[in-house]
């Protein structure tokens, strides 16, 4: 399978300039998100380094700005560029975590439903249908509410990243389940599966070693698009106040804080994190589009 991914896919990637640019941008953003401490010019969450007198500075190219704070500062004197880099890490962590959880749940359900068929298949797919009637945001809000009730406000704020990962994971698994179920139902009739069954491999062994590798391309495509969606769900929840609190803000939280000043003249506090979010999700979506076309056997 890695041989499949290596040669033709990369060749396609090099041929498609948009996707290549998106891939490059995404790599840069991921590196920034992975090691923010090394690359951010200021340690924005070390309260000792903050000075209120630095607050509300505009971006460097505007009158009153300085290159010490290239994208300006927020209402507490935090450097926007550094805050965005740290915020990227939170947003990407929640996004990746949510997608990973959704993949695990969805793939498991899809494999079981597709292989077992019959009553189990019907049951699982009806559960999936019910879940699909709820918008993802609503499910995330409900899970957040449950967490708030169970943990209390303070503990919930500290665990906000985990709560959001669970919320996004639980609200997004259905797509994967459906795709994997379909692929599983096709694969289980194949000869190699019959051969494996005859040679005594158990159901789990068949699912894990034989069928799973063949359904992963679908998962990859869905996952890439879902990553963009997951990051946006997190940003939406944070904007509304149900997500990450302002002490370790994600991009959505930064936008929420900046919203207070958007029309009073200090537009950069909201627009800069907004642009960062836009670029991140756009790069992910472009890459996802490319992958979907490149991995679609029917387009070859």
């Amino acid at each position, binding site marked *: 399978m890695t041989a499949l991914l290596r040669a033709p896919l990369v060749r396609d990637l090099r041929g498609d300039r948009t996707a290549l640019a998106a891939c490059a941008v995404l790599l840069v953003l991921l590196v920034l998100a992975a090691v923010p401490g090394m690359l951010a010019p200021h340690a924005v969450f*070390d*309260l*000792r380094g*903050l000075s*209120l*007198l630095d*607050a*509300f500075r505009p971006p460097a190219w505007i009158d009153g700005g300085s290159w010490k704070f290239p994208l300006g500062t927020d*209402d*507490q*004197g935090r450097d926007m560029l550094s805050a965005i880099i740290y915020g990227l890490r939170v947003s990407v962590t929640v996004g990746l975590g949510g997608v990973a959880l959704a993949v695990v749940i969805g793939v498991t359900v899809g494999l079981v439903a597709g292989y077992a068929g019959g009553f189990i298949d019907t049951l699982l797919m009806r559960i999936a249908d019910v879940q699909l009637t709820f918008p993802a945001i609503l499910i995330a809000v409900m899970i957040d509410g449950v967490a708030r009730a169970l943990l209390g*406000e*303070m503990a919930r*704020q500290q665990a906000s990243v985990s709560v959001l990962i669970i919320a996004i994971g639980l609200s997004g698994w259905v797509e994967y389940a459906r795709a994997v179920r379909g692929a599983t139902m096709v694969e289980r009739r194949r000869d190699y599966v019959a051969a494996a069954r005859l040679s005594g491999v158990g159901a789990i062994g068949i699912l894990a070693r034989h069928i799973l590798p063949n359904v992963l391309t679908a998962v990859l495509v869905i996952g890439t698009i879902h990553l963009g969606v997951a990051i946006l769900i997190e940003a939406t929840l944070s904007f509304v106040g149900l997500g990450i*609190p*302002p*002490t370790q803000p994600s991009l959505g939280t930064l936008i929420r804080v900046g*919203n*207070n*000043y*958007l*029309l*009073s*003249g*200090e537009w950069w506090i909201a627009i800069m994190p907004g642009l960062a979010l836009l670029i991140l999700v756009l790069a992910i979506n472009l890459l996802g589009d490319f992958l979907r076309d490149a991995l679609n056997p029917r387009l070859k």
Partner: protein
Amino acid sequence: MTPLTLFNPARRTGVATALALALLAQPLAAQTLRIAAQGDMGTMDPHAQNSQITNTILAMIYEPLVMRARDLSKAPGLATAWDSTGDTTWRFTLREGVSFQNGNSFGPEDVKFSIERAQAPTSQFSNLVGTVAGVTIVDDQTIDIETTMVDPLLPDKMSQLFIMDSDWAAENAVTVPQDLKNLENTFAVMNANGTGPFTLSERVPDSRTVLTRAPSYWGEMASDIQEVVLLPIGSPPTRVSALLSGEVDIVLDVPPQDVARLESAPGLKVSQGPELRTIFFGFDQASDALKYGDAGGKNPFKDLKVRQAVDHALDADTIAKVVMRGLATPTGTYFAPGNFGWDDSLGQHSTFDPELSKSLLAEAGYPDGFSVRMDCPTDTYVNPEQICQAVSAMMAQIGIEVQLNLMPRAQFIPLLWEKDTSFFIIGFNTTYFDAMYVLETLLMTQTGQDGEGIYNYSGYSNPAFDDLVRKARVALNEDERRALMVQAATMAKDDVAYAPLHTQILTWAMKDNVEAVVRPDNILEIRWLEMQ
């Protein structure tokens, strides 16, 4: 009827005239005043919650014995005259011909009932009636209030006590104020019956409260407003947008960052005035160990040096300039200049000196600082979140690691009542323009008697201070009273009972056709409001 007959000229004229008459006969749309505020009322019970917005709206439905004139001096309300007829007796003459909105007439038994109701343990207005020993009904228009000690401020206190209908309360089993602390639900939480110009017609908590004009009101109104709607809008930019888009007519809690934009917006105007609200920080001075933090098993706030360290680390000038955009005045005490008992010496905030703070902390035995949780509301006072974040950074600079705990007001206030906090921000408004309110309720040891220390959330207790206040409150000579009060306030300031920050400047924004008088106690007096 064939279509031809419909187009008969005579019939057409007839129809047109009928339509025109019908349109003219439509009454002019009833005037509605829509108010946007940052928070909602917690209850309709007039003695259960002593909070700004609750009092503002309830003052449209209920009324006190003593009201305020435009120059804020005391004026007749439900009482037309009052006089001290003895050292400890005040005689009030009641207004005739007043009825409650349900038709019952207002009488002395209602006053007696209301005063006694406000003395209940679940009342948040017990300070107003803390010195009342008893109420005697002399005749249909006269009552005598007996006090436990000489109380020259009794009429001032009566300006905040809403009068309820004793019969209505008995019929609906609300003779005792709602226990807000324990989230008790009573008939009075959603229903009201007062003597004021408006009745409650709709109440959807956290969404809208609608008041309708009561035609039988005894007093004068400056406007024809038939309906008042309160819309609580917690998010500051949404509140401002609501005014800009015309959805509301007046906004009571204007964030400082939007003042410039509102001033330049056409069709709107901004009114400002000094507010009687002071913002300061409190510490738990009673517990032996920090409840929410880590200081090696001790409570650092018990040590004066630590409190002084916090005080010197607060850069009130920068907060006023940056966070409040100049709409705040740094101060050195816990009440505003407009109150009786003010002295300019109390207005000086301590010098901003973080180095001094660090050495004070080291002297107190905390050279590496300590960590503590700060509790902060998000939807009451002006820009509380931003102030608390700025103060967290200032504390970090002297080694105190602050964990900021933000929460809505509904969770924050109970935390204070239960004294379930180690470090908190608080804003205080004097209800009757006299600093005695602050000295008695905020700073005196909480004895549970005479309303002493009912809002003392920090556990500050200084017997010498208590003595000074007890002497001051029975002093009939104004100069003597003032001198004693200043002495007491200075003592509390030196003790750093709380770390002061600033006095707010009040900003209201409204449509050009609304003329509202900005009162320093942030109460929107509906009787004075004009609307074209």
